[in-house]
């Protein structure tokens, strides 16, 4: 690059920094929005259910049934409220006061001791599917453990078949360990896309684009250098998120910091380029913001595997999810935090992210014509 070319590139970067400095909202976007989002996602959106109020109706009233009740009451997931009839509990279930009702039927002890088909009924609130699912799986676990321990006592000679589930990487099965890396990617997707969605549109709206384009600066140099300050600010946002995740949520960082940096940098490259592209095709700040939310934030939230498991989605939507950059960030990010440096996961995802970024940068460059009208 000639010295004049370097000077032009530096001039654009200096100007962008000066504008950031003069615009407190940009700094707010970089510092406060990530903090807000990470605390929101990290705390409010916990998928763990703890101490769920659950009704219990023991129609059997035998030693065995009381033993099972005791096992349920001992479990920390449940706060058991006993009643003699289902009806009053059912009313409270409707009101959302209890989340489920366990009914031990008449003749339960007989069925259990005769090795018959002992059944326990569980009624859950289907309008709260997450809670219902957790409740039923926890209840199932408690009952299975209870019956296993009984079998152990009753038939000491027999070899018990014990099913031991070990939750690898997240032994406490704390959902925040899975969610926080996901939340970091959502934060990065949102910041990256919003930051850049505004900057090119702003130049068009204020008429300064005409001044810039009339100089010998090439559009490639304009696009390339405009992105630099925002890239660095995006990294700063990521650092804030990581600091909160490790210090506040106790998330381990089992991989290396350099791997984390490479992963986040390639993701930021992809989303910033996407934002830049949005910004240069709309040429309007309002439309850019709308599009950034629609194309950047929402797909990251819904189609990245952060909230909803991709494997359980229809094939067409699964295919669609391959277009969402966050999809390629969450697996390596979860690995680098919870597992360690697994380059066989990192490298393909990084390659895809770099590809997406370069594609959008190329589109942005051709969307910015040298002409204004």
């Amino acid at each position: 690059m000639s010295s004049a070319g370097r000077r032009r590139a530096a001039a654009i970067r200096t100007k962008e920094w000066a504008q950031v400095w003069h615009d407190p909202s940009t700094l707010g976007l970089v510092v406060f929005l990530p903090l807000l989002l990470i605390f929101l996602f990290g705390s409010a959106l916990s998928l763990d259910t703890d101490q769920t109020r659950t009704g219990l109706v023991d129609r059997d009233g035998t030693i065995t049934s009381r033993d099972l009740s005791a096992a349920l009451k001992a479990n920390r997931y449940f706060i058991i409220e006993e009643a003699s009839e289902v009806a009053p509990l059912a009313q409270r279930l409707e009101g959302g006061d209890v989340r489920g009702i366990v009914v031990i039927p008449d003749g339960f002890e007989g069925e259990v001791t005769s090795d018959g088909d002992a059944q326990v009924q569980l009624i859950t609130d289907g309008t709260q599917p997450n809670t219902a699912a957790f409740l039923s799986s926890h209840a199932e676990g408690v009952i299975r453990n209870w019956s296993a321990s009984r079998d152990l006592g009753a038939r000491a000679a027999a070899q018990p078949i014990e099913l031991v589930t070990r939750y690898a990487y997240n032994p406490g099965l704390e959902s925040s360990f899975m969610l926080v890396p996901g939340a970091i990617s959502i934060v990065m997707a949102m910041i990256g896309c919003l930051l850049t969605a505004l900057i090119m549109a702003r130049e068009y709206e204020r008429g300064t684009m005409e001044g810039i384009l009339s100089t010998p600066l090439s559009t490639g140099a304009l696009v390339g250098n405009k992105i630099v300050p925002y890239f660095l600010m995006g990294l700063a946002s990521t650092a804030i998120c990581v600091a909160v995740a490790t210090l506040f949520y106790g998330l381990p960082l089992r991989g290396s910091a350099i791997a984390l940096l490479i992963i986040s940098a390639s993701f930021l490259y992809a989303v910033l380029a996407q934002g830049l592209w949005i910004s240069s095709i709309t040429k309007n700040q309002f439309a850019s913001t709308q599009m950034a939310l629609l194309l950047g934030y929402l797909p990251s939230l819904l189609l990245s595997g952060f909230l909803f498991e991709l494997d359980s989605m229809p094939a067409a939507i699964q295919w669609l999810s391959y277009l969402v950059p966050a999809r390629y960030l969450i697996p390596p990010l979860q690995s680098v935090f919870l597992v360690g440096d697994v380059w066989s996961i990192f490298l393909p995802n990084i390659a895809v992210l770099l590809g997406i970024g370069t594609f959008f940068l190329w589109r942005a460059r051709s969307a910015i014509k040298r002409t204004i009208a």
Partner: protein
Amino acid sequence: MEAPIGPVIRLSGVSKSFAAERRGAPVVPAVRNISLEVAPGTLLGLVGPDASGKTTLLRMLAGMAEADSGDISVFGKSVSELDRSLVGYMPQGGALYLELSVEQNLDLYARLRGIDPAAEPDRIENIYTLTGLGDFRGRAVGKLSGGMRQKLAMACAVVAAPPLMLLDEPSVGVDPLSRREIWQLARDLSGQETTIIWATSILDDAEKCDELLVLHEGQVRYSGAPTGLTDLANNRVYSTPVLAGDRRKELARVHRLPDTIDAQIEGDGIRFVNRIASKDASPAQPRAADGFVALLDDGLKLQDSRLAATFPDRTETIGQAGAAIAAVGLTKRYGSFTAAYDVSFTVAPGEVFGLLGPNGAGKSTTFRMLCGLLKSSDGRSTVAGQNLRTAGPAARKALGYMPQYFGLYGDLTVAANLRFIAGAHGMGRKEGEGAIDDVVSALSLESILPQRAGLLPIGIKQRLSLAAAVLHRPEVLFLDEPTSGVDPIVRREFWHHINAIAATGVAVLVTTHFMDEAENCDRLMLLNQSRAIAQGTPSELKKGIARGGPEPTLEEAFIALIEAQRRIEADAA
């Protein structure tokens, strides 16, 4: 750099249209079949009203827009291979970053244009000296006066001393003293061989150019020396003396004469351009603006304003005690910034009062305080005896307001817009329809009723805005820059209506930055940098600065007053 051989710019048969705003609408032609050659070292004035194609033509020369047909060559090469370092293009409004400082803006553009400010401090210092911005390096551009902003924008465009300067309206919207300084700055920043294309809608500017290209509706109407344009009005410009009290009546009479193209009050007389030579009046010195009016003459004979005829007769209020509009010490502060300071005046029924000043002088702020749209920090005001900020909605019926920018709904039809306005004024169906029919026939809007308002040409939009402002026949009329950017023919019709409406007893308050237009006002207030610097009738203002010699123009009076204001500020600082 070597001197280019042959013309710097050559255009042959260049046309450009803009795509229709929506499907089915016609394409909008911006520039039609223009051919032109510009020799090195020429100062070419690109003259025409708004939307006449000036900006499109400049953009095509700067490589910022592509022609649909025809060839453009700049420095002997097709414009598609333009070397941008040879061209200094100043877009309209200047393309400055308002939140950044003067220095940051100049540095940015210097470096983008290949200059290293650190390596060439003399060049940059020279620019600060010439623009007079040396003391304002650290100030945010948004806090500069309009004139300083335009000077900085020009400096940013031509910092690398390019052999071709393309300047889009560098002198519009600034005070007359700054306008003079901007012309001087362009000369200081250019060399003997520099070619300058200067777009302007101010015809006074035209006389300072070597060559002119007059555009109207995308077509070249005149090409040649400025004197040639002035000559079009040779032996056609006359002046007739008039008594102060009869000015308006006399003006209307001259307008009705079959051979009058345009007439304006000027000093103690009426200056008019005739279609034929006249023996009855004494000849006056023609100007470029007169030539332009003669060029655009549509053959129309102005009749008595039918719009004014629909107003109730309030002439008995004229000359009575009591002001229709009163402002006492109106002040507006935004933090440390004062947008208007201690503005006081009164307007009587039947009087046309002008607020005259450059962009950012505080005209619109004063207007909005009077309308009750903005709370004043200090002072008070009444319109038709009421404070519009505290009075109920009924008080607003007395006021008709025409905003500076087209304030109607662009995607509604003209008829729907007028019905909406009638409804907003609380008129019933019958009453509203009657009022609409009256203004529509008075302003000949029948043919455009079903059209979408946003797609109308600028002159028609202006007429429609006036119709909307007077739909309820107010007793006080506020007009914010009503003739900004329209051609002289539209301007003539506009003032014809205003004068006639005032004659029915309506108090009219009008803002403008055109000096010649201000002569239409009975009394004027000159505003500059948020302060009223003078008030009086046009001739009082002129006499105030006359020190023997010929009578100064209003513009010269304004310049003298701004200079005095600057001296006072410099002494205070």
